[in-house]
């Protein structure tokens, strides 16, 4: 039994909230949260430190609303999907008829890594549709760039407004369409320089050794090890599912290692590639899903002169 605006809806009821003042945010969020608690629904907040504190202070003591730490939830899109799906499955198994969540991406997500968060916002329309979830994604229009707000409109089926309305988003685009569009991230400045290593058709073992060779010790060893896993998987997928020549290029900066793996093919056909594990391991989808959780940024580039390129960043994405 679902309540509120999502009553009668099947699956995921996904809304965006655009606000330009704390009052506007609270005007949407407080009734949403208190309504969930009143209906006995598991109700969560995954906001940043400032807005989370604002909401916490505005809620009555012992409200029953649960707070997730927004920063760690939204570290990597695929990990966020994995942990949210687990949370939702657990609550449904415990008998929840609906789960409510208000979340907010950290401002850093609107920068160099926005492309994969845009893919996240689109993909979750599918990824959470197995569950009776009503969620709101809050965007502060004072700090959110216009091009990000355009993508928010295309990835959220509807908006929740401070006036209590739930309005359809006119530009909402189905994930299977949206996720097949070219959405390349800006080039990392390192890519304007000659790569430290460039290999054509390397074995996965050679690719792993190449990452070790460019490691200057500026990143934590675990980050380098995870990048090695990611590069190994990406090269393996390119050799197995792409078209030769497969090219690995590696750069190292003061705070990061950047790898690109290109092949002459079209890239994965699965629009959710990387964000969800592929149903059958034969398509290489599990490797890409692991890759997405082993790097601080992964971006897809289709249709360029190089064919399909996956760019992987360990350290700080630029």
């Amino acid at each position, binding site marked *: 039994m679902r309540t509120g605006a999502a009553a009668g809806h099947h699956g995921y009821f996904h809304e965006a909230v655009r606000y330009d003042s704390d009052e506007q945010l609270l005007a949407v969020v407080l009734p949403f949260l208190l309504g969930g608690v009143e209906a006995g629904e598991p109700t969560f907040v995954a906001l940043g430190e400032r807005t989370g504190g604002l909401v916490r202070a505005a809620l009555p003591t012992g409200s029953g609303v649960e707070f997730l730490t927004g920063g760690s939830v939204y570290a990597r899109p695929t990990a966020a999907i*994995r942990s949210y799906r687990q949370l939702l499955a657990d609550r449904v198994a415990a008998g929840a008829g609906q789960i409510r969540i208000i979340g907010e991406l950290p401002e850093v997500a609107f920068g160099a890594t926005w492309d994969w968060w845009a893919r996240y916002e689109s993909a979750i329309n599918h990824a959470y549709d197995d569950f009776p979830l009503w969620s709101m994604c809050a965007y502060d229009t004072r700090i959110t760039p216009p091009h990000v707000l355009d993508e928010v409109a295309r990835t959220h089926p509807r908006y929740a407004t401070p006036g209590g309305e739930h309005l359809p988003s006119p530009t909402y685009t189905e994930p299977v369409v949206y996720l097949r569009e070219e959405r390349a991230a800006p080039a990392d400045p390192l890519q304007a320089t000659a*790569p*430290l*290593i*460039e*290999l*054509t*058709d*390397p*074995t*996965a*073992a*050679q690719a*792993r*050794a*190449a990452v*070790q*060779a460019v490691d200057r010790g500026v990143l934590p060893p*675990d980050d380098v*090890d*995870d990048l*090695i*896993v990611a590069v*190994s*998987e990406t090269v*393996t997928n390119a050799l*197995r599912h792409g078209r030769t020549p497969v090219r690995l290029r590696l750069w190292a900066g003061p705070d990061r290692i950047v790898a690109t793996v290109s092949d002459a093919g079209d890239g994965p056909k699965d629009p959710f590639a990387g964000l969800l594990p592929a149903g059958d*391991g034969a398509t290489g989808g*599990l*490797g890409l899903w*692991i890759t997405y*959780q*082993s790097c601080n940024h992964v971006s897809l580039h289709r249709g360029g002169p190089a064919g399909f390129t996956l760019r992987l960043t360990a350290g700080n994405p630029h």
Partner: protein
Amino acid sequence: MTGRVALNCPHGAAGVISGMTPSTTYGHVCWVYDDPAALDQAARTFLTAGLAAGERLWYVTAGPVEPVVARLTTTPALGDALARGAAEVVSLPDTYPSGAVVDGPAQVRAYAAATEAALAAGYRGLRVVAEATPLVRTPAQLDAFTRYEHLVDRYMRARPFRAMCAYDRREIDGRAVAELACLHPETNAVEAPFQLFAWDGTGHRAGLTGELDETGEELFVTALERADLRPVDGRLVLEAPGLRFVDHRALLRLREYACRRNSAVLLRSPLPAAARLAALLDLPGLTVEVAR
């Protein structure tokens, strides 16, 4: 490759012997050669080490005995050992049952008896160089012999028996080389990306070293089947202090293998990334522990 950089690609660094002196841990070496002269030198080095350790020496040759005796005699200490009976060159048909397909348990029993006889004669063990190429020419021979290699590997963990198994790369293909080499704790063969071996004499724990990725996935499945590992208390344990890389495919295959034996599996390695991978897969019955 277009790039020319000095890659640190330590293929088989833990278990692949790069020089001519096998630094054996317990002495089960797969030696693959293209040049008989290289085998001769490696064999003399291996046997000389046994001499120093007070072991009885055998050289099992696939060809005539006399030329081998002549070659070994060029190393004076080995010549002395041959003269006083501490070393012996025997022909393959006398040591391995003819008819080609090896009976693994029977062969282990034969070497066990020879080892005990050596001990009874006052030696500190038995050390053998065996030219085994004629025993692995057909798929059936290869399958039986690789299974035997792991069985005898277990025996070597328990008793003072050491062996260098020599295979002629000119006569068997690269896949066969890989299938043989990956079931030895030590090898000079670059064809084996990983090695699976006995960790104790009971077969209750196995050792694993090298790199496991998609290129070795099928080989890994084959090696596991042939090793026929035995769960203890519902769990298989693989000790992998020398493991340098393992991907999700290998972890999944390992788990499937354990499941077919109604068992869970524990892989203990120094790789935190492997433990993170296992955490991502989040599969019951698969545990990866980090042990430095």
